[in-house]
């Protein structure tokens, strides 16, 4: 069963047998994100939730993953001093990153071309990144006198530590896929042009797993990054009480005891 979300002009969204794919679709602008695409991405994510998808893959159409904030909009902000950048960031980027990170299912990003600035943050907000060999990563913010936003100051140091993150932010260095892999910024590098199909193959495996346990693990990992051990242990105990009552846990245990493959429904 495939569920399409209609009426979108800059984003495509499908959910097929639990696998949701959200594709940024402004290839002529290298998938730069303007206000319309922000709105449509949020609608797509709401659809993914409603459709009870079990895994999400985010990708970009055409040659780029995403160039980040649409600079034409920034130009307009320059012309009108009444336009508040902080409110724009809150309403668009903050809301989008929060949305992606609060999903209770595994999220993969398929990056098959350049990802820059806030476009990279979309990939960073995913749990796993599959990069094509020609993918590149750049923190473009400081090159135009801006501060990294869209969660970059939190997401990037969490992966590579403060010094490498600041080096990238200060210099705006463009990282290639292999360097990104060795720095822990992507999970796998695959042949150029195959990132989406590789990500979807992995996603299909994840879609057959106990979704509730995966969703809780995801939330717990991001939460406990900033908590101490005692709080994390307590949090895990609370989540385990919930997980132990899921149908998938029962199925997992019985399948093991009966010597057969489990069939998880995500419940």
């Amino acid at each position: 069963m495939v569920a399409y979300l209609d009426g979108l002009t800059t984003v495509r969204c499908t959910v097929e047998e639990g696998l949701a794919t959200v594709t940024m679709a402004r290839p002529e602008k290298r998938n730069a994100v303007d206000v319309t695409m922000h709105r449509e991405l949020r609608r797509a994510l709401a659809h993914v939730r409603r459709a009870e998808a079990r895994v999400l893959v985010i990708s970009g159409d055409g040659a780029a993953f995403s160039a980040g904030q649409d600079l034409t909009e920034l130009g307009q902000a320059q012309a009108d001093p009444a336009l508040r950048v902080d409110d724009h960031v809150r309403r668009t980027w903050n809301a989008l990153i929060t949305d992606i990170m609060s999903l209770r299912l595994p999220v993969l990003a398929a990056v098959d071309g350049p990802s820059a600035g806030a476009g990279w943050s979309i990939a960073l907000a995913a749990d796993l990144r599959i990069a094509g060999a020609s993918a590149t990563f750049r923190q473009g913010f400081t090159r135009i006198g801006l501060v990294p936003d869209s969660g970059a100051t939190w997401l990037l140091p969490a992966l590579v530590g403060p010094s490498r993150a600041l080096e990238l932010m200060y210099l705006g260095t463009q990282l290639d896929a292999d360097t990104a892999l060795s720095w822990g910024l992507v999970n796998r590098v695959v042949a150029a042009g195959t990132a989406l199909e590789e990500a979807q193959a992995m996603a299909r495996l994840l879609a057959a797993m106990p979704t509730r346990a995966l969703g809780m693990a995801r939330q717990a990992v991001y939460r406990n990054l900033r908590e101490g051990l005692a709080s994390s242990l307590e949090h895990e105990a609370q989540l385990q009480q919930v997980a132990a009552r899921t149908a998938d846990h029962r199925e997992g245990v019985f399948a093991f005891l009966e010597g057969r493959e489990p069939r998880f429904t995500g419940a």
Partner: protein
Amino acid sequence: MSWEQVKVAREDAVGVITLDRPRVLNALSGELVAELGRALDELDADADVRCIAVVGSDRAFAAGADIGQMVEATPVDMLRADAFAAIERIGSLATPVVAGVSGYCLGGGCELAMACDFIVASETATFGQPEINLGIIPGAGGSQRLTRAIGKAKAMDLVLTGRSLSAIEAEAAGLVARLAAPEAWLEETMRACREVASRSALALRVARDVVNASQEMSLQAGLAYEQRSFHMLFASNDQREGMAAFRDKRTPEFVGS
């Protein structure tokens, strides 16, 4: 009489009232609050119910009052309706009441939660008194209970700007007693209620009374009140039983008197 805007359930010694208006994020209508009052009275009267939980859904505890019911109201209408009377009666029930909060806990919802004995909140819950956005002020204890709970600085920010506190902020500021993992808030609320319900019903009643009284009295008067209440419990079976069980290293069996 049936329940239409709340659900009422029993789990052993814990009574659970679930606010049930999902399409409007449990907006507190006059009818919902009246049903809540009736449910509280029924559970309070049942001697086998030793703790009451008031909860909402994952998305919302209650996102406010039912604005549609109030748009054209006059002062006399509001006086006569006394729509939030049930909230004010919570403190005088004999049974402890614990609020289990997930999602939006705003306006009348926040006031309801604060009128309970303590709050267990999902880490994703948000608290606020946004009545100022509608050209009014909190009308069910918000300005009083919130300020006492979190202090003037934050309370004034919330009441003047209508902004929300995250659950993490609310716990740090003293509004929320316990935080819970987002998927586990109801389980943690019930766990807290079971802990309460396993204690002496008489001691619980006196404990709630003295803690609530401390909000109204000078320290000296409060200490004297606590002392007399403390002394009084030495006429109770549960005091004998509780202390003997401790001395004899066994689990006490309380009878509530």
